[in-house]
Protein backbone atom coordinates (compact mmCIF):
# COMPACT_ATOMS: atom_id res chain seq x y z
CA UNK A 1 0.00 0.00 0.00
CA UNK A 2 3.10 2.23 0.34
CA UNK A 3 3.20 4.91 -2.28
CA UNK A 4 -0.16 4.01 -3.69
CA UNK A 5 -2.19 7.18 -4.05
CA UNK A 6 -5.85 7.05 -4.89
CA UNK A 7 -6.79 8.66 -8.16
CA UNK A 8 -10.37 8.40 -9.32
CA UNK A 9 -9.94 10.57 -12.42
CA UNK A 10 -8.62 7.64 -14.46
CA UNK A 11 -11.82 5.73 -13.71
CA UNK A 12 -14.42 8.46 -13.67
CA UNK A 13 -13.51 10.33 -16.85
CA UNK A 14 -13.34 9.94 -20.59
CA UNK A 15 -13.50 6.54 -22.23
CA UNK A 16 -13.53 4.60 -18.95
CA UNK A 17 -16.50 6.51 -17.63
CA UNK A 18 -18.33 5.53 -20.82
CA UNK A 19 -17.48 1.86 -20.21
CA UNK A 20 -18.72 2.15 -16.65
CA UNK A 21 -21.99 3.80 -17.66
CA UNK A 22 -22.68 1.24 -20.36
CA UNK A 23 -21.95 -1.49 -17.78
CA UNK A 24 -24.52 0.03 -15.43
CA UNK A 25 -27.03 0.15 -18.27
CA UNK A 26 -26.52 -3.51 -19.21
CA UNK A 27 -26.78 -4.57 -15.55
CA UNK A 28 -30.03 -2.61 -15.21
CA UNK A 29 -31.47 -4.14 -18.40
CA UNK A 30 -30.44 -7.63 -17.36
CA UNK A 31 -31.95 -7.16 -13.90
CA UNK A 32 -35.24 -5.65 -15.10
CA UNK A 33 -35.71 -8.13 -17.93
CA UNK A 34 -34.84 -11.18 -15.84
CA UNK A 35 -37.01 -9.99 -12.95
CA UNK A 36 -40.11 -9.56 -15.11
CA UNK A 37 -39.60 -12.87 -16.91
CA UNK A 38 -38.87 -14.71 -13.66
CA UNK A 39 -42.05 -13.43 -12.02
CA UNK A 40 -44.07 -14.43 -15.09
CA UNK A 41 -42.51 -17.91 -15.12
CA UNK A 42 -43.07 -18.25 -11.37
CA UNK A 43 -46.79 -17.54 -11.83
CA UNK A 44 -46.94 -20.09 -14.66
CA UNK A 45 -45.20 -22.66 -12.43
CA UNK A 46 -47.54 -22.07 -9.50
CA UNK A 47 -50.62 -22.30 -11.77
CA UNK A 48 -49.25 -25.56 -13.24
CA UNK A 49 -48.66 -26.93 -9.76
CA UNK A 50 -52.19 -26.08 -8.69
CA UNK A 51 -53.89 -27.69 -11.69
CA UNK A 52 -53.99 -30.93 -9.72
CA UNK A 53 -52.58 -32.91 -12.64
CA UNK A 54 -49.94 -35.37 -11.49
CA UNK A 55 -47.47 -34.86 -14.39
CA UNK A 56 -47.71 -31.08 -14.00
CA UNK A 57 -47.07 -31.34 -10.28
CA UNK A 58 -44.14 -33.67 -10.88
CA UNK A 59 -42.70 -31.37 -13.53
CA UNK A 60 -42.86 -28.29 -11.31
CA UNK A 61 -41.32 -30.10 -8.32
CA UNK A 62 -38.45 -31.37 -10.48
CA UNK A 63 -37.99 -27.95 -12.09
CA UNK A 64 -37.72 -26.27 -8.71
CA UNK A 65 -35.32 -28.85 -7.21
CA UNK A 66 -33.03 -28.83 -10.26
CA UNK A 67 -32.80 -25.05 -10.40
CA UNK A 68 -32.25 -24.73 -6.66
CA UNK A 69 -29.57 -27.42 -6.38
CA UNK A 70 -27.33 -26.57 -9.34
CA UNK A 71 -25.02 -23.53 -9.05
CA UNK A 72 -26.28 -20.53 -11.00
CA UNK A 73 -22.92 -20.22 -12.76
CA UNK A 74 -23.26 -23.80 -14.02
CA UNK A 75 -26.77 -22.99 -15.26
CA UNK A 76 -25.43 -19.91 -17.05
CA UNK A 77 -22.59 -21.95 -18.61
CA UNK A 78 -25.08 -24.63 -19.63
CA UNK A 79 -27.29 -22.07 -21.37
CA UNK A 80 -24.29 -20.52 -23.06
CA UNK A 81 -22.38 -23.62 -24.22
CA UNK A 82 -24.99 -26.39 -24.40
CA UNK A 83 -28.43 -24.93 -25.13
CA UNK A 84 -27.56 -23.36 -28.53
CA UNK A 85 -26.32 -26.82 -29.64
CA UNK A 86 -29.77 -28.22 -28.96
CA UNK A 87 -31.51 -25.52 -31.03
CA UNK A 88 -32.21 -25.76 -34.76
CA UNK A 89 -29.74 -23.98 -37.03
CA UNK A 90 -31.91 -20.92 -37.84
CA UNK A 91 -32.38 -20.23 -34.12
CA UNK A 92 -28.60 -20.49 -33.58
CA UNK A 93 -27.98 -17.99 -36.35
CA UNK A 94 -30.61 -15.65 -34.98
CA UNK A 95 -29.01 -15.84 -31.51
CA UNK A 96 -25.55 -15.07 -32.85
CA UNK A 97 -26.87 -12.04 -34.67
CA UNK A 98 -28.73 -10.72 -31.62
CA UNK A 99 -26.21 -10.50 -28.79
CA UNK A 100 -26.54 -14.15 -27.75
CA UNK A 101 -24.58 -13.67 -24.46
CA UNK A 102 -27.08 -11.17 -23.14
CA UNK A 103 -30.16 -13.17 -24.17
CA UNK A 104 -28.81 -16.47 -22.82
CA UNK A 105 -27.70 -14.90 -19.53
CA UNK A 106 -31.11 -13.29 -19.15
CA UNK A 107 -32.85 -16.61 -19.78
CA UNK A 108 -30.55 -18.48 -17.38
CA UNK A 109 -31.08 -15.92 -14.62
CA UNK A 110 -34.86 -15.79 -15.01
CA UNK A 111 -35.35 -19.56 -15.27
CA UNK A 112 -33.32 -20.00 -12.07
CA UNK A 113 -34.91 -17.21 -10.02
CA UNK A 114 -38.38 -18.30 -11.20
CA UNK A 115 -37.90 -21.54 -9.24
CA UNK A 116 -37.23 -19.57 -6.05
CA UNK A 117 -40.03 -17.08 -6.68
CA UNK A 118 -42.57 -19.85 -7.30
CA UNK A 119 -41.60 -21.38 -3.95
CA UNK A 120 -42.13 -17.99 -2.31
CA UNK A 121 -45.58 -17.72 -3.90
CA UNK A 122 -46.39 -21.29 -2.89
CA UNK A 123 -45.52 -20.70 0.76
CA UNK A 124 -47.75 -17.61 0.67
CA UNK A 125 -50.66 -19.55 -0.83
CA UNK A 126 -50.19 -22.47 1.56
CA UNK A 127 -50.48 -20.18 4.57
CA UNK A 128 -54.07 -19.25 3.67
CA UNK A 129 -56.42 -21.65 5.48
CA UNK A 130 -58.67 -23.58 3.03
CA UNK A 131 -61.65 -22.38 5.09
CA UNK A 132 -61.15 -18.92 3.61
CA UNK A 133 -61.73 -20.37 0.19
CA UNK A 134 -64.79 -22.30 1.32
CA UNK A 135 -66.26 -19.30 3.15
CA UNK A 136 -65.76 -17.11 0.11
CA UNK A 137 -67.43 -19.63 -2.18
CA UNK A 138 -70.30 -19.97 0.30
CA UNK A 139 -70.76 -16.20 0.17
CA UNK A 140 -71.36 -16.51 -3.57
CA UNK A 141 -67.95 -15.57 -4.96
CA UNK A 142 -66.88 -17.54 -8.02
CA UNK A 143 -63.45 -19.18 -8.29
CA UNK A 144 -61.84 -16.20 -10.01
CA UNK A 145 -63.26 -13.55 -7.72
CA UNK A 146 -62.39 -15.67 -4.68
CA UNK A 147 -58.81 -15.69 -5.94
CA UNK A 148 -58.86 -12.02 -6.89
CA UNK A 149 -60.46 -10.57 -3.74
CA UNK A 150 -59.80 -13.09 -0.95
CA UNK A 151 -56.89 -15.44 -1.52
CA UNK A 152 -54.36 -13.55 -3.65
CA UNK A 153 -54.26 -10.28 -1.68
CA UNK A 154 -53.43 -12.20 1.49
CA UNK A 155 -51.02 -14.61 -0.21
CA UNK A 156 -49.19 -11.78 -1.98
CA UNK A 157 -48.58 -10.04 1.33
CA UNK A 158 -47.19 -13.22 2.89
CA UNK A 159 -44.97 -13.91 -0.14
CA UNK A 160 -43.57 -10.40 -0.16
CA UNK A 161 -40.56 -10.79 2.21
CA UNK A 162 -39.09 -13.81 0.38
CA UNK A 163 -39.89 -12.23 -3.01
CA UNK A 164 -37.93 -9.11 -2.06
CA UNK A 165 -35.09 -11.29 -0.81
CA UNK A 166 -34.95 -13.10 -4.16
CA UNK A 167 -35.15 -9.81 -6.06
CA UNK A 168 -32.03 -8.71 -4.21
CA UNK A 169 -30.31 -12.03 -4.93
CA UNK A 170 -31.22 -11.71 -8.61
CA UNK A 171 -29.74 -8.22 -8.72
CA UNK A 172 -26.48 -9.35 -7.13
CA UNK A 173 -26.28 -12.41 -9.34
CA UNK A 174 -26.51 -10.44 -12.59
CA UNK A 175 -22.74 -10.13 -12.03
CA UNK A 176 -22.37 -13.84 -12.89
CA UNK A 177 -23.24 -12.96 -16.50
CA UNK A 178 -19.70 -11.64 -16.86
CA UNK A 179 -18.49 -15.27 -16.95
CA UNK A 180 -19.92 -15.62 -20.47
CA UNK A 181 -18.81 -12.16 -21.56
CA UNK A 182 -21.91 -10.04 -21.04
CA UNK A 183 -20.62 -6.45 -20.83
CA UNK A 184 -22.31 -5.64 -17.52
CA UNK A 185 -20.96 -3.67 -14.56
CA UNK A 186 -18.60 -6.33 -13.14
CA UNK A 187 -17.22 -7.12 -16.60
CA UNK A 188 -16.63 -3.47 -17.39
CA UNK A 189 -14.91 -2.84 -14.07
CA UNK A 190 -12.57 -5.75 -14.81
CA UNK A 191 -11.87 -4.19 -18.22
CA UNK A 192 -11.14 -0.79 -16.71
CA UNK A 193 -8.93 -2.41 -14.07
CA UNK A 194 -7.01 -4.15 -16.85
CA UNK A 195 -6.62 -0.91 -18.72
CA UNK A 196 -5.66 1.43 -15.87
CA UNK A 197 -4.41 -0.80 -12.98
CA UNK A 198 -6.48 1.48 -10.75
CA UNK A 199 -7.64 -1.62 -8.84
CA UNK A 200 -8.94 0.06 -5.68
CA UNK A 201 -10.66 2.94 -7.40
CA UNK A 202 -12.54 0.92 -9.97
CA UNK A 203 -13.64 -1.82 -7.56
CA UNK A 204 -14.63 0.81 -5.00
CA UNK A 205 -16.81 2.56 -7.58
CA UNK A 206 -18.40 -0.69 -8.78
CA UNK A 207 -18.98 -1.95 -5.23
CA UNK A 208 -20.52 1.38 -4.25
CA UNK A 209 -22.92 1.20 -7.20
CA UNK A 210 -23.93 -2.36 -6.29
CA UNK A 211 -24.30 -1.47 -2.61
CA UNK A 212 -26.42 1.62 -3.25
CA UNK A 213 -28.70 -0.34 -5.58
CA UNK A 214 -28.97 -3.21 -3.10
CA UNK A 215 -29.83 -0.82 -0.29
CA UNK A 216 -32.42 0.83 -2.55
CA UNK A 217 -34.03 -2.57 -3.19
CA UNK A 218 -33.97 -3.38 0.55
CA UNK A 219 -35.46 0.02 1.43
CA UNK A 220 -38.17 -0.19 -1.24
CA UNK A 221 -38.98 -3.69 -0.02
CA UNK A 222 -39.26 -2.52 3.60
CA UNK A 223 -41.48 0.39 2.54
CA UNK A 224 -43.71 -1.84 0.46
CA UNK A 225 -43.95 -4.41 3.25
CA UNK A 226 -44.97 -1.74 5.73
CA UNK A 227 -47.65 -0.42 3.39
CA UNK A 228 -48.94 -3.92 2.67
CA UNK A 229 -48.98 -4.56 6.42
CA UNK A 230 -51.00 -1.40 7.08
CA UNK A 231 -53.59 -2.31 4.49
CA UNK A 232 -54.33 -5.52 6.36
CA UNK A 233 -55.62 -3.71 9.43
Amino acid at each position, binding site marked *: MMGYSLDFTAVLAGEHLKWLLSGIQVTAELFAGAWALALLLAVVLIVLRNTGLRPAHWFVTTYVEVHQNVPLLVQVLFWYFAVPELLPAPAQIWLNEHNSEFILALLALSFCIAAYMSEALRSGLRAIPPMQYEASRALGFGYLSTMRYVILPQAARLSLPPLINYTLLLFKNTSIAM*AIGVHELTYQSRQIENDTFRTFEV*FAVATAIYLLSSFAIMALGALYERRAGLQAR
Partner: protein
Amino acid sequence: MLQILRDNWVLFLIGQYPAGPLGGLSATVLIAVLGLGLSFPCALLLGLGRISPFRSIRAVTAIIVHTVRGTPFLMVIFWSYFALPIIIGHPIAGFPTLVGALVIYESAYLAEIVRSGIEALPKGQIEAARSLGLNYRQAMMSVVLPQALYNSLPTMMSQFVSLIKETSLGYVISVNEFTFAAAQVNSRLLTKPVQVFSILALTYFLLCFALTQSARAVERHIARRRREDPAVIRPLESFVVEPAP
Protein backbone atom coordinates in the same frame (compact mmCIF):
# COMPACT_ATOMS: atom_id res chain seq x y z
CA MET B 1 -21.71 -39.11 -22.02
CA LEU B 2 -20.45 -42.34 -20.45
CA GLN B 3 -17.45 -42.25 -22.76
CA ILE B 4 -16.59 -38.73 -21.55
CA LEU B 5 -16.97 -39.87 -17.93
CA ARG B 6 -14.75 -42.89 -18.56
CA ASP B 7 -12.04 -40.78 -20.16
CA ASN B 8 -12.10 -37.90 -17.70
CA TRP B 9 -13.31 -39.17 -14.34
CA VAL B 10 -9.93 -38.64 -12.69
CA LEU B 11 -9.85 -35.01 -13.83
CA PHE B 12 -13.44 -34.50 -12.67
CA LEU B 13 -12.71 -36.03 -9.27
CA ILE B 14 -9.25 -34.79 -8.27
CA GLY B 15 -7.99 -32.64 -11.14
CA GLN B 16 -4.29 -33.06 -11.98
CA TYR B 17 -3.65 -33.91 -8.33
CA PRO B 18 -0.50 -35.94 -7.91
CA ALA B 19 1.16 -34.00 -10.74
CA GLY B 20 -0.46 -30.62 -10.06
CA PRO B 21 -2.80 -28.92 -7.59
CA LEU B 22 -5.81 -30.75 -6.17
CA GLY B 23 -8.81 -30.00 -8.36
CA GLY B 24 -12.18 -31.27 -9.45
CA LEU B 25 -15.00 -32.31 -7.17
CA SER B 26 -12.74 -33.05 -4.19
CA ALA B 27 -11.35 -29.51 -4.33
CA THR B 28 -14.90 -28.16 -4.46
CA VAL B 29 -15.84 -30.15 -1.33
CA LEU B 30 -12.59 -29.20 0.42
CA ILE B 31 -13.10 -25.49 -0.31
CA ALA B 32 -16.71 -25.67 0.89
CA VAL B 33 -15.81 -27.50 4.12
CA LEU B 34 -12.92 -25.11 4.85
CA GLY B 35 -15.19 -22.17 4.06
CA LEU B 36 -17.88 -23.37 6.45
CA GLY B 37 -15.43 -24.33 9.20
CA LEU B 38 -13.60 -21.00 9.10
CA SER B 39 -16.68 -18.81 8.73
CA PHE B 40 -18.60 -20.42 11.59
CA PRO B 41 -16.56 -18.82 14.42
CA CYS B 42 -16.67 -15.45 12.63
CA ALA B 43 -20.43 -15.83 12.20
CA LEU B 44 -20.88 -16.62 15.90
CA LEU B 45 -19.00 -13.46 16.87
CA LEU B 46 -20.89 -11.33 14.31
CA GLY B 47 -24.24 -12.83 15.28
CA LEU B 48 -23.62 -12.22 19.00
CA GLY B 49 -22.45 -8.71 18.12
CA ARG B 50 -25.73 -8.03 16.35
CA ILE B 51 -27.65 -8.57 19.61
CA SER B 52 -24.97 -7.19 21.92
CA PRO B 53 -26.12 -4.99 24.83
CA PHE B 54 -23.68 -2.33 23.57
CA ARG B 55 -25.08 -0.07 20.90
CA SER B 56 -21.70 0.63 19.24
CA ILE B 57 -21.03 -3.10 18.74
CA ARG B 58 -24.53 -3.55 17.35
CA ALA B 59 -23.99 -0.69 14.89
CA VAL B 60 -20.58 -1.88 13.67
CA THR B 61 -21.69 -5.48 13.15
CA ALA B 62 -24.91 -4.35 11.43
CA ILE B 63 -22.87 -2.26 8.97
CA ILE B 64 -20.54 -5.20 8.25
CA VAL B 65 -23.41 -7.65 7.72
CA HIS B 66 -25.47 -5.35 5.50
CA THR B 67 -22.49 -4.26 3.41
CA VAL B 68 -21.51 -7.84 2.68
CA ARG B 69 -25.10 -8.85 1.95
CA GLY B 70 -25.49 -5.97 -0.50
CA THR B 71 -22.36 -6.88 -2.51
CA PRO B 72 -22.25 -9.55 -5.23
CA PHE B 73 -20.05 -12.50 -4.26
CA LEU B 74 -18.08 -12.00 -7.47
CA MET B 75 -17.14 -8.49 -6.27
CA VAL B 76 -15.89 -9.97 -2.96
CA ILE B 77 -13.80 -12.46 -4.94
CA PHE B 78 -12.32 -9.66 -7.09
CA TRP B 79 -11.47 -7.59 -4.02
CA SER B 80 -9.62 -10.55 -2.51
CA TYR B 81 -7.97 -11.55 -5.78
CA PHE B 82 -6.88 -8.20 -7.20
CA ALA B 83 -6.86 -5.70 -4.34
CA LEU B 84 -5.62 -7.78 -1.38
CA PRO B 85 -2.25 -8.67 -3.02
CA ILE B 86 -1.53 -4.95 -3.43
CA ILE B 87 -2.12 -4.38 0.31
CA ILE B 88 -0.02 -7.29 1.55
CA GLY B 89 2.59 -6.88 -1.17
CA HIS B 90 2.70 -10.34 -2.73
CA PRO B 91 0.30 -12.38 -4.87
CA ILE B 92 -1.94 -15.08 -3.34
CA ALA B 93 -2.99 -18.28 -5.09
CA GLY B 94 -6.57 -18.77 -6.24
CA PHE B 95 -7.41 -21.46 -3.68
CA PRO B 96 -6.83 -19.43 -0.48
CA THR B 97 -8.36 -16.39 -2.20
CA LEU B 98 -11.60 -18.26 -2.82
CA VAL B 99 -11.68 -19.68 0.72
CA GLY B 100 -11.06 -16.20 2.13
CA ALA B 101 -13.80 -14.63 0.00
CA LEU B 102 -16.19 -17.40 1.06
CA VAL B 103 -15.40 -16.79 4.74
CA ILE B 104 -16.12 -13.06 4.39
CA TYR B 105 -19.33 -13.62 2.48
CA GLU B 106 -20.71 -16.58 4.42
CA SER B 107 -19.92 -15.12 7.85
CA ALA B 108 -22.47 -12.39 7.17
CA TYR B 109 -25.16 -14.85 6.09
CA LEU B 110 -24.48 -17.35 8.89
CA ALA B 111 -24.41 -14.48 11.41
CA GLU B 112 -27.99 -13.63 10.49
CA ILE B 113 -28.97 -17.28 11.00
CA VAL B 114 -27.29 -17.29 14.43
CA ARG B 115 -29.00 -14.00 15.33
CA SER B 116 -32.47 -15.10 14.27
CA GLY B 117 -31.92 -18.39 16.10
CA ILE B 118 -31.18 -16.52 19.31
CA GLU B 119 -33.98 -14.01 18.84
CA ALA B 120 -36.49 -16.79 18.19
CA LEU B 121 -35.94 -18.25 21.67
CA PRO B 122 -38.38 -17.09 24.35
CA LYS B 123 -36.99 -14.15 26.34
CA GLY B 124 -37.65 -16.05 29.57
CA GLN B 125 -34.68 -18.30 28.78
CA ILE B 126 -32.04 -15.64 29.27
CA GLU B 127 -33.95 -14.03 32.12
CA ALA B 128 -34.18 -17.36 33.95
CA ALA B 129 -30.50 -18.03 33.33
CA ARG B 130 -29.50 -14.60 34.61
CA SER B 131 -31.70 -14.89 37.70
CA LEU B 132 -30.02 -18.20 38.50
CA GLY B 133 -26.83 -16.21 38.89
CA LEU B 134 -25.18 -16.88 35.52
CA ASN B 135 -23.50 -13.88 33.96
CA TYR B 136 -24.21 -12.78 30.35
CA ARG B 137 -21.41 -14.88 28.90
CA GLN B 138 -22.35 -18.00 30.85
CA ALA B 139 -26.04 -17.59 30.03
CA MET B 140 -25.21 -17.26 26.32
CA MET B 141 -22.70 -20.09 26.22
CA SER B 142 -24.54 -22.70 28.25
CA VAL B 143 -28.23 -21.82 27.88
CA VAL B 144 -29.03 -19.72 24.83
CA LEU B 145 -26.52 -20.72 22.16
CA PRO B 146 -26.87 -24.51 22.45
CA GLN B 147 -30.62 -24.28 21.92
CA ALA B 148 -30.43 -21.59 19.26
CA LEU B 149 -27.80 -23.45 17.24
CA TYR B 150 -29.70 -26.72 17.55
CA ASN B 151 -32.87 -25.06 16.28
CA SER B 152 -31.10 -23.40 13.37
CA LEU B 153 -29.26 -26.55 12.26
CA PRO B 154 -31.50 -27.11 9.18
CA THR B 155 -31.03 -23.49 8.05
CA MET B 156 -27.27 -23.85 8.50
CA MET B 157 -27.29 -26.99 6.39
CA SER B 158 -29.14 -25.29 3.57
CA GLN B 159 -26.65 -22.43 3.82
CA PHE B 160 -23.91 -25.03 3.35
CA VAL B 161 -25.61 -26.00 0.07
CA SER B 162 -25.43 -22.34 -0.99
CA LEU B 163 -21.77 -22.35 -0.02
CA ILE B 164 -21.06 -25.38 -2.21
CA LYS B 165 -22.81 -23.67 -5.10
CA GLU B 166 -20.82 -20.48 -4.54
CA THR B 167 -17.49 -22.32 -4.80
CA SER B 168 -18.24 -22.69 -8.53
CA LEU B 169 -17.44 -18.97 -8.94
CA GLY B 170 -13.80 -19.89 -8.37
CA TYR B 171 -13.96 -20.70 -12.09
CA VAL B 172 -13.83 -16.96 -12.82
CA ILE B 173 -10.40 -16.60 -11.14
CA SER B 174 -9.25 -20.02 -12.47
CA VAL B 175 -9.29 -21.93 -9.18
CA ASN B 176 -8.91 -25.63 -9.90
CA GLU B 177 -12.32 -26.85 -8.78
CA PHE B 178 -15.12 -28.84 -10.33
CA THR B 179 -16.56 -26.24 -12.73
CA PHE B 180 -13.07 -25.30 -13.87
CA ALA B 181 -12.26 -28.98 -14.52
CA ALA B 182 -15.42 -29.35 -16.60
CA ALA B 183 -14.60 -26.21 -18.58
CA GLN B 184 -11.15 -27.66 -19.28
CA VAL B 185 -12.65 -30.91 -20.51
CA ASN B 186 -15.13 -28.92 -22.60
CA SER B 187 -12.47 -26.86 -24.31
CA ARG B 188 -10.41 -29.97 -25.01
CA LEU B 189 -13.29 -31.93 -26.55
CA LEU B 190 -14.76 -28.84 -28.27
CA THR B 191 -17.77 -30.64 -29.76
CA LYS B 192 -19.47 -32.12 -26.69
CA PRO B 193 -20.70 -29.18 -24.58
CA VAL B 194 -24.14 -30.69 -23.95
CA GLN B 195 -22.68 -33.88 -22.47
CA VAL B 196 -19.92 -32.18 -20.45
CA PHE B 197 -22.16 -29.57 -18.89
CA SER B 198 -24.87 -32.15 -18.22
CA ILE B 199 -22.33 -34.21 -16.25
CA LEU B 200 -21.32 -31.07 -14.38
CA ALA B 201 -24.88 -30.00 -13.56
CA LEU B 202 -26.00 -33.52 -12.64
CA THR B 203 -23.10 -34.06 -10.23
CA TYR B 204 -23.71 -30.75 -8.46
CA PHE B 205 -27.39 -31.63 -8.35
CA LEU B 206 -26.82 -35.03 -6.72
CA LEU B 207 -24.48 -33.54 -4.10
CA CYS B 208 -26.64 -30.51 -3.26
CA PHE B 209 -29.97 -32.34 -3.46
CA ALA B 210 -28.75 -35.00 -1.02
CA LEU B 211 -27.75 -32.25 1.42
CA THR B 212 -31.02 -30.35 0.92
CA GLN B 213 -32.99 -33.51 1.63
CA SER B 214 -30.93 -34.16 4.79
CA ALA B 215 -31.61 -30.58 5.91
CA ARG B 216 -35.33 -31.23 5.47
CA ALA B 217 -35.06 -34.52 7.38
CA VAL B 218 -33.28 -32.76 10.26
CA GLU B 219 -35.94 -30.05 10.23
CA ARG B 220 -38.72 -32.65 10.47
CA HIS B 221 -36.85 -34.42 13.27
CA ILE B 222 -36.50 -31.19 15.26
CA ALA B 223 -40.14 -30.31 14.67
CA ARG B 224 -41.18 -33.75 15.93
CA ARG B 225 -38.99 -33.46 19.01
CA ARG B 226 -40.52 -30.10 19.76
CA ARG B 227 -43.99 -31.58 19.67
CA GLU B 228 -43.16 -34.67 21.70
CA ASP B 229 -40.52 -33.58 24.18
CA PRO B 230 -41.60 -30.81 26.57
CA ALA B 231 -37.95 -30.24 27.51
CA VAL B 232 -37.13 -28.93 24.04
CA ILE B 233 -37.76 -25.22 23.91
CA ARG B 234 -40.00 -24.11 21.08
CA PRO B 235 -38.79 -21.05 19.24
CA LEU B 236 -41.32 -18.25 18.93
CA GLU B 237 -41.26 -18.24 15.15
CA SER B 238 -40.63 -21.23 12.96
CA PHE B 239 -37.57 -21.31 10.77
CA VAL B 240 -38.09 -21.26 7.07
CA VAL B 241 -35.32 -22.90 5.09
CA GLU B 242 -34.83 -20.27 2.42
CA PRO B 243 -32.16 -21.36 -0.02
CA ALA B 244 -30.19 -18.95 -2.18
CA PRO B 245 -28.92 -19.43 -5.73
